[in-house]
């Protein structure tokens, strides 16, 4: 079994590891780097719970090998939080705050992947309408909400980014 030494940037910090070649990026983030915010919902690339941002693009981390992320810049849900606390006086990113205000989530298991996919989409398509947002998030499965509250959170975030 091949182990490969890798160095990559995760949430702005240089991280190293020696994962087996077969280890997915998702498992490397969760187990080797203890970044358990990225979730495993299906491990075959359909549900989107494992979505992270690699070199500026949203990807399914269960469909990448950790070794393939060598030299890349990876952002996980933990990297979106400004200071993590989210208490009154703390600061969430605009998208996360809008989703909090919109009651976007219930059990929270789909949340990290949904937030990362929404963040990637909004940064490329700041003027997207509801239908476009729905299509962009149609690869992220949520079992609790029926999606409306999530869409509302994304729409609210878009408004706030525009300073409306």
């Amino acid at each position, binding site marked *: *079994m091949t182990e490969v030494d890798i160095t990559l940037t995760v949430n702005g910090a240089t991280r190293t590891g020696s994962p087996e070649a*077969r280890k997915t990026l998702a498992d490397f983030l969760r187990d080797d780097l203890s970044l358990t915010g990225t979730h495993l919902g299906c491990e*075959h690339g359909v549900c989107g719970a494992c979505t992270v941002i690699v070199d500026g693009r949203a990807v399914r981390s269960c*469909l990448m090998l950790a070794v393939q992320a060598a030299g890349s810049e990876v952002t996980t849900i933990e990297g979106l939080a400004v200071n993590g606390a989210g208490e009154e006086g703390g600061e969430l990113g605009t998208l996360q705050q809008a989703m909090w205000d919109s009651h976007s989530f219930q059990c929270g298991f789909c949340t990290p992947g949904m937030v990362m996919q929404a963040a990637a989409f909004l940064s490329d398509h700041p003027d997207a309408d509801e239908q476009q947002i729905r299509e*962009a998030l149609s690869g992220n499965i949520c079992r609790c909400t029926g999606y409306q509250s999530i869409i509302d959170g994304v729409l609210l975030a878009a408004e706030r980014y525009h300073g409306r």
Partner: protein
Amino acid sequence: MKLPPVDYEAPRTVSEAVDLLAEHQDEASVLAGGQSLIPLLALRLAQPALLIDINGVQELSGVSVTGGWVTIGAMTREYVAEESGTIAGAVPLLAAALPLIGHEAIRSRGTVGGSLAHADPAAELPAVARALDAEFVVRGPSGERVVPAAEWFEGYLTTSRQPDELLTEVRFPAAGPGTGVSFQEIARRHGDFAMVGLATSVTLSDGVISDARLAFAGVSDVPARATGAEELLAGERPSAELFDQAARRAAGDLDPPSDLHGSAEYRKKVAAALVRRGLREAVDNAQAVDNAQEGQ
């Protein structure tokens, strides 16, 4: 659902990759985008001894045009192809199909070559390649050969690539004047594989169909050209009755599978509906192009 043990190599050049393939033959799997291969490994449906990761082979990326052909390097990411102005202008059928592949995150990693080498008959790109008679360039230990699309797709997930060959690029003919296209797809949900998909290209000359291409996804173990319907269309003026005839002929020529998502009977009905819709859209687009050109 963890991947099985596997060795790993990451060649930097095509010739290193080919050397590895020559050594390991069908004990090795080529890892391109991974969006089709990694799920197979996770489900332990495939257990190669070696993964040859070609993501580091720079010479396999890129889109260029030469002499009426658009050449797409095998490692060109689907999202790059989607954003390519060259492809949008010269291979509109490919441009129409690309946004339907899965979801954005899949297209971030998935590659044009990978999808075509994986050859899932329900996928979009094989139908486009088959419709346009694309050419597949493979390199092996004894050199390069070019395989036309008609000979590329051999069976379910099976191409004529030999175990010691690497797909390096795919060439699509640039669309001629007066050409309109359509990619139709009926899937259970947005972004899913097609239950039935149809790539359509129609060229009009003086209002007459000079060339018609129809290739189905999801109706066979390979993408299926509707040659009977194409012959019926050639030389005719577009009309609803003509499209109907073509639809019945195309559906009648099919022997689709039945599975959890649709029976053979269902697929035939949908195929016919897609032929009507695809021809309408392609002809509308061709007429718009034709009018635009006439207006010049």
